[in-house]
Every structure is written in structure tokens, then in C-alpha cells.
């Protein structure tokens, strides 16, 4: 019997305590950010959209090897000796012509593993986060500007499923 009344009392008391807390929260400042009108400033390390400054790319393919989900596709060919020498922004000589540098952003897992090995730091993840598109194929970012000059090699046979 004693327990019965104790239970009733406890129920009422704890309910009132809870109501006090929620009641106080009615008057605290809310932490909502009104998104489309107020935009979030992301920190500089934010890993969002990938960007490649193709002028600095030397075509070494380290990013392609690092990518755990294979979303970077690269084709290169040797530049002719006769062509004028070009250099990346940090002075690295560019010996390969990058004819394909495709990033399929719909496959990207935003792990940032591709940007670390990049010797000229031309591949970066930018803090830009609004890049939704209407069609999935528009997520294929094609950075290469050079056209292949040598006759194209026969297309490689498709990767067997489950293997690398």
C-alpha cells in the first residue's frame, strides 16, 4: 500500500520535473540554421566536391591507385620529345599528356585518400557542398582538356566482377 502511494507520488513528481525542463526549453534560443537563406560556412578542411586543376596534373596515376572505390579514370600518353616542355605550378615537369581524367562523383566515397599522394597537389576536395544534379550521368566530371594524339589503344577488357 505504501508503495502504491509512493509510485503515484513519484509519477507526478517526475512528470512535473520533466515539464519544468521542457518548459524552460520553450524560451531558450533554438539552434536551427535556416538553410537556404542562411548558408553554412564549412571549414577549409571540408571534404566535399573533388576538383582537379588539370594544368598541374602530371598524370602519375597515384590517385587512381589510392581510390578504394575506383571512381577516378585516367588515360595518359607520352608527350613527344619535340613538343615544348611544360611544367606544373610547383615546377614538376609534365611528361605525360592526360587525355582522360574522369571522376565519377556519384561513386566517390569522400574518403580523401586520392588527394594525399598527389605530388603536385592539383587534386583537391573543395568545401563546396551544393552540387546536386538532375541526371546521374552529370556526376561524371571530365577534367581532361587534351585530345589523344596517338591512335587509341584497343579498349581494355571489362574488369571481372569482384576483382581489381
Amino acid at each position, binding site marked *: 500500500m505504501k508503495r502504491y502511494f509512493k*509510485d503515484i507520488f*513519484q*509519477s507526478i*513528481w*517526475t*512528470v512535473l*520535473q*520533466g515539464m519544468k*525542463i*521542457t518548459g524552460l*526549453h520553450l524560451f531558450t534560443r533554438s*539552434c536551427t540554421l535556416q538553410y537556404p537563406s542562411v548558408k553554412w560556412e*564549412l*571549414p577549409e*578542411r*571540408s*571534404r566535399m566536391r573533388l576538383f582537379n586543376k588539370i594544368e598541374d596534373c602530371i598524370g602519375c596515376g597515384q590517385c587512381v591507385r*589510392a*581510390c*578504394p*572505390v575506383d571512381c577516378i579514370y585516367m588515360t595518359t600518353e607520352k608527350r613527344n620529345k619535340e613538343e615544348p616542355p611544360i611544367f606544373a605550378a610547383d615546377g614538376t615537369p609534365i611528361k605525360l599528356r592526360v587525355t582522360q581524367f574522369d571522376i565519377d562523383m556519384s561513386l566517390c*566515397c*569522400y*574518403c*580523401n*585518400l586520392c588527394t*594525399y599522394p598527389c605530388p603536385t597537389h592539383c587534386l583537391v*576536395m573543395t568545401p563546396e557542398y551544393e552540387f546536386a544534379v538532375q541526371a546521374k550521368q552529370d556526376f561524371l566530371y571530365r577534367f581532361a582538356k587534351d585530345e589523344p594524339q596517338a591512335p587509341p589503344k584497343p579498349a581494355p577488357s571489362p574488369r571481372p566482377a*569482384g*576483382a*581489381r
Partner: protein
Amino acid sequence: MQVEAYAGEEMVLNMGPQHPSTHGVLRLELETDGEIVRNVIPHIGYLHRCFEKHAENIDYPGVIPFCDRMDYIASMNNSLGYALAVEKLMGLEVNERVKTLRVLMAELNRIASHLLSIGTYAMDIGSFTPFLHCFREREKVLDLFEWLCGARLLYNYNWVGGVSHDIPEGFEAKTREFMTQFEPVIAEMDKLLSYNKIFLERTADVGIISEEQALSHNVTGPNLRGSGIAWDLRKEEPYCGYETYEFEVPVGLGEHGPLGSCWDRYYVRIREMEQSLGLIRQALDRLPEGDVHEHIPRRVRPAKSEVYDRTETPRGELGYYLVSDGGLIPFRVKVKSPCFTVLSLLPAIAKGGMVADIIAIIGSIDIVMGEIDR
């Protein structure tokens, strides 16, 4: 006699895989007799993403983003376990700054993870407000992480032999600021939820895991400690220098009903957040100088060997069994998930309860399907 006459009255209720409170895509086959649940059959695998097969096809550092995606609530802890296992395989020793940063991030992540687990548990029991209060706090931790490494959920922070980023300038002060304003929130949560009579009634004598069951089913983490066993890998098998920190291991005391109930497990998590705060404070105080990339190997290529290494994640003991054949890619990566083992206990503890109790139990064992199904 009576029971037999009504034997045909049982109904099979298919709960999940799309259900608001099965914490992902768990499917439960319930045999119900009115509100009473006669039998529970869990069906898992709806979130199977072939982690182990993937891992056999990528180089060692490439596995880390996939580790993050197993227990996506506690990514820092997941990748930490993997990084430690690979380091053990290679016999690699990291410097003190890396160790301290790892502890710091693991504990921050533990707070974030427990906040989510407590919040969703409140929602399972029917209380919405604590859920959003928890999420508000969790966002602050995630903001810190984003500032640190650029991602909010899947960090890819712990690398083999180091961490990806050193902390940015002002990170310490910001973390301390977070801690000062977070401490009162725990007290508020106690008042709003933990000691609420309805919450106690719903959880305090439901889903009891006995000590024997817990050991036989290899229940670990807060679920084990809720049953009164003071077992924490950070104390028993210290890694990352946990032995040099001062902290307590909270255990369930059975204050409100039998020991090992849902409420005990829930309350262990609340108390663990307090301990984590202490750990973060110690880590911030000592933070030694050093280069976080100092020991990162150019090429991760362990010699032929194998190792089973386990760490204490917010959900319990996460084990990695790595087999290396001396190549650049792991020969075998097996993950022992803490949620997997505790979920296997669900039929035993849920039988005879009510439909509402099933929800209370699933919430209290704090499962993440991504880790169970891998």
C-alpha cells in the same frame, strides 16, 4: 488445456526491415499471442555490403574508409581498431601525439555515439524531446570532427601509423568549451528521462541479461557492464596508452529492479559519457608535441602473419582478425562485431515479453545494422 484450445490464436507479425524502431534494417519475425510475444526470430543481412570481400581486394589503407562505414555512428573507433590491428601486424609503434589524439577522438566519438543511442532509445520509448536534445549536442561533436578532418560522419581519420590531420588551431579551446556546456546536459537528461517514472516502468524490469547469458553469448561493452560485470578493454587490455589515464568503469547496479535490465544498460551509457569527458580533459591536458605523419609507412606491407586484435568501441568489443600473406592487400579481414553477438541473444531475452518490450530491448542493446551485416 485452456492454452491448447487457443493455440491457433497466435499471429505472426513481421516487424521490419522497414520499421521506425528496428534501428536500421533488422527484420524480426514475431509470434504474438495478443500483445504477448511467444517467439522472436531475427533475420539479418539486409545491409550486407560484402565488407570482408571488399577488404580482400583493396590495399591496407583503402580498407579504412570501408571500416568507417560499418558502424557509421562510431567511425573513429572502427577505424582505430583496424589501424591498431595492422600496426600490430607490422610491429609499428606510433608516437605519443598520435596516441593521445586517437584517444581524444575515440572518446569524443564515444560521446557522440552514446548520445545517439540514448536519444533514439528515448524515441523508442515514446519521448521525442530528449532525442533532439541529444542530437543537438551530437552535432556539436560532429562540428568539431568536421573542423578536424573535413567529414562529419565517415572520417577516415585513423591511418596505419598515424592520423590524417593534426588538430587545427583553437581546437583545444573549442573542445573545452563544448565540455563545459555539455556537462549540465547530462544532468538535464537524468531529470528529463532517466528517472522519469514512466521511463523506469518501461525499462527497469525488462530485457534482463544474466551474467551467464552475457558470457555465453559474448555480450560486450555497455551491455555487459549493464549486467554488473566491470569489463572494459580500455582497462583490461589497454591500447593507445589508456593505462595512463584515470577513469572508472561504470557498471549496472540494479537500483530500479533486477540487474541487467534495459535501464541498467541505458544508464551505463549515461555514466560512460561522464567518464569520456574526463578522458578528453586528460588527453587535452597532456597533448605532447610531435608529427602525426611521422610513422606513416610509405607502403603498408606486413610480413606473413596473422593477428586478432580487439578494441572497445561504444558498442563493445570490436575484433579484427587479419591474415596477411605478405602482399599489399590483406588476405583475410574478419570482423567480430559487438552488435552481432548481442543481437543473437535477442530471442532469449525477448520471449514472453510484450510487443512494446521488444522495442525497448532492441533500443537498449544499441545495435547498428551496418556493423552486424557488414
